[in-house]
């Protein structure tokens, strides 16, 4: 090797100041780091945004809606969210628009931009199975002798032109003429309510149970964990069904039922964490300084357990939402006229053949919410994973 030339000044001692700083990398606070990782996770962030929007809609949406979730209007039943308008041009050149509700063969007036005015009154001819209307001075006949229903204007068959979004009932109405949108928003209220109350109750039971078992140790721990083992073996759905049969359907019962089934995982996690942390030095130090068990659990142990607890909670929410909707779907959940996504789905199944769109909204709402919580839970778990943190 040929020796590379080095300028003589290069052999001067290196001034120490600037190099020392290189060694220390700045330590990022834990939660800032978690938040940064969560934000970088697109699906998790989208889930979070969706959940926030959903919460706001559930709280404020019904207040802003002109409709209530219980008021029925059978004349306005099964209105679709997308209308196919017929246009009648009068002799004076004025235009009237209406659409045909293929469910009850009735005509409803609509404005240019898709607002519904009212059901139109016509002369019903039951014998010939036709109804005659006078719209803009013309004879409009709805003939339902043979299906599909035909509409003729002044004896010539008319066809609907284009599609327009129903501006009055954005999501349409159900078979009792109630606004689907507002019922959806109430459904969101129920789902979120059940989810959050149930999660909270489970959290407290789980933390208390696991905390006491882990902290006490010995025979108490063994006994408590045996009980947990037994409970864990009981299928959750069966348990909830039994409680619902026992307490009778209703919102309170479902909250109680779901509130008391999911704490087992939580108890196990908290106990496990406490057992490992109990050995650690600072708990021993706290104990020698005279801190009592409650103080040790709340001030020292729980803050260290918060990560796994948070993930379990986030994962618990979609389970609670699912069970509630499942119970409501099989008729054991909330009672009418209250609407939950489960009852909305089950109602829609009854009319699925004629009004498939009614199935779409609750199914989509439920699925999207489940997605959102799943993504958030997954993202949170990844973000909190200490293995990624080096």
């Amino acid at each position, binding site marked *: 090797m040929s020796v590379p030339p080095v300028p003589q000044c290069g052999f001067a001692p290196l001034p120490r100041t600037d190099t020392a700083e290189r060694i220390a990398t700045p330590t990022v606070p834990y939660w800032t780091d978690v938040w940064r990782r969560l934000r970088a996770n697109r699906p998790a962030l989208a889930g979070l945004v969706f959940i926030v929007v959903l919460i706001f809609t559930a709280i404020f949406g019904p207040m802003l809606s002109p409709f209530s979730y219980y008021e029925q209007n059978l004349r306005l039943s099964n209105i679709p969210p997308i209308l196919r308008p017929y246009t009648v041009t009068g002799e004076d050149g004025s235009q009237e628009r209406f659409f045909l509700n293929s469910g009850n063969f009735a005509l409803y007036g609509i404005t240019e931009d898709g607002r519904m005015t009212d059901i139109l009154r016509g002369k019903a001819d039951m014998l010939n199975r036709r109804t005659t209307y006078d719209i803009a001075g013309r004879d409009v006949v709805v003939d339902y002798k043979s299906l599909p229903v035909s509409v003729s204007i002044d004896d010539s068959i008319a066809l609907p032109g284009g599609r327009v979004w129903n501006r009055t009932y954005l999501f349409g109405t159900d078979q009792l003429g109630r606004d689907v949108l507002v019922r959806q928003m109430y459904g969101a209220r129920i789902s979120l309510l059940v989810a959050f109350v149930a999660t909270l109750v489970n959290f407290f039971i789980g933390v208390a149970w696991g905390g006491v078992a882990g902290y006490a140790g010995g025979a108490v721990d063994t006994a408590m964990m*045996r009980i947990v*083992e*037994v409970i864990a*073996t*009981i*299928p959750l*759905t*069966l348990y909830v*069904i*039994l*409680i619902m*049969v*026992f307490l009778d359907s209703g919102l309170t019962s479902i909250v109680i039922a779901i509130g008391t089934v999911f704490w087992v995982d939580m108890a196990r996690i908290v106990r496990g964490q406490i057992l490992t942390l109990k050995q650690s030095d600072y708990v021993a130090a706290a104990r020698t300084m005279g801190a009592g068990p409650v103080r040790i659990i709340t001030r020292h142990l729980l803050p260290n357990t918060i990560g796994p607890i948070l993930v379990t909670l986030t994962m618990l929410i*979609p389970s609670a939402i*699912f069970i509630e*909707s*499942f119970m409501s*779907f*099989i*008729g*054991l959940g909330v009672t009418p006229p209250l609407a939950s996504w489960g009852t909305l*789905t089950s109602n*829609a*199944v009854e009319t*699925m*053949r004629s009004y*498939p769109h009614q*199935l779409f909204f609750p*199914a989509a709402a*439920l*699925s999207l919410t*489940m*997605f959102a919580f*799943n*993504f958030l839970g997954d993202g949170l778990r990844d973000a909190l994973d200490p293995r990624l943190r080096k």
Partner: protein
Amino acid sequence: MTGAAIRALPWGWFLRRLALMAVTLWVIITLTFFMMHAVPGGPFVSERMMAPEIAAALDAKWGLSDPLWQQYLNYLRGILRFDLGPSFKYPGVSVNEMIADGLAVTARTGLLAVLCVVAVGVPLGIAAALNRGRWPDTGVMMLATIGVAVPSYVIATVMLYVFALRLGWVPTFGLDDWRGYILPVIALAGFWVSFVARLTRSSLLETLDQDYMTTARAKGLRRRQILIRHGLRNSLIPVVTVLGPVVANLLTGSFVIEQIFALPGIGRHFVLSITNRDYTAIMGITIFYAAFLILMILIVDILYLWLDPRIRAGAKA
């Protein structure tokens, strides 16, 4: 197996598990009994409104005029003889008959679904893990996320609408030909296929990162040998542990699936009993489900023991 090998099995551990399972079953039976007892208008109240022949049947079975504890013991005794008593709603029908009536349908769809979970979920998970970050992985994970997030009854109804009502590819209800099984089995298995695919993937990924996998490579073993002998065996252990609960949950999932597709299975009877308030049927079917689930968990325990020598040692200690 040789006598020594049989003696080497952790019998004590197994007996303890058995005892725990028995206790669990007993807790469920007791809970069910007293809950149903406390329901106003339930089956164990003597001044009630029910068909006289039902009242007579119930009385003959459990002695409704006897004190509560006597009734409870009668009920327990019945269960020990696999006798779940008469229906509370249908005169002359026993809960045993209801279960027997639906068993074939439920077992057949359930078994197909379990097969799906194992034969589809596990390979999908493996394919995803081995192609980590590439399109098979992304595709499988996307599917699996849908399967885990969308409730089975939503999948069922949407599929029913699309494939049966709109496209007419499969019958809307009934199991008269094999195509009738397609939608119920997919709906039933969808969640667990996804769940197992995700679990297999993450478990295999974790295994692939283990030091002993590097050892296997350093020994010059062939790719297939490394993957099957060292990778799969270890990564399937957690998958096996969830299979017991999977089977049980397939059963509970079947309530609503049988309802939606109008399949004459146990689940349909169960949901009907709930709507009809057929309390004895609810009790009986609940206990049947619970017993089945517990049996599954025991079977999985044994499988687990066979797969993982560490557990064998731990269980013996």
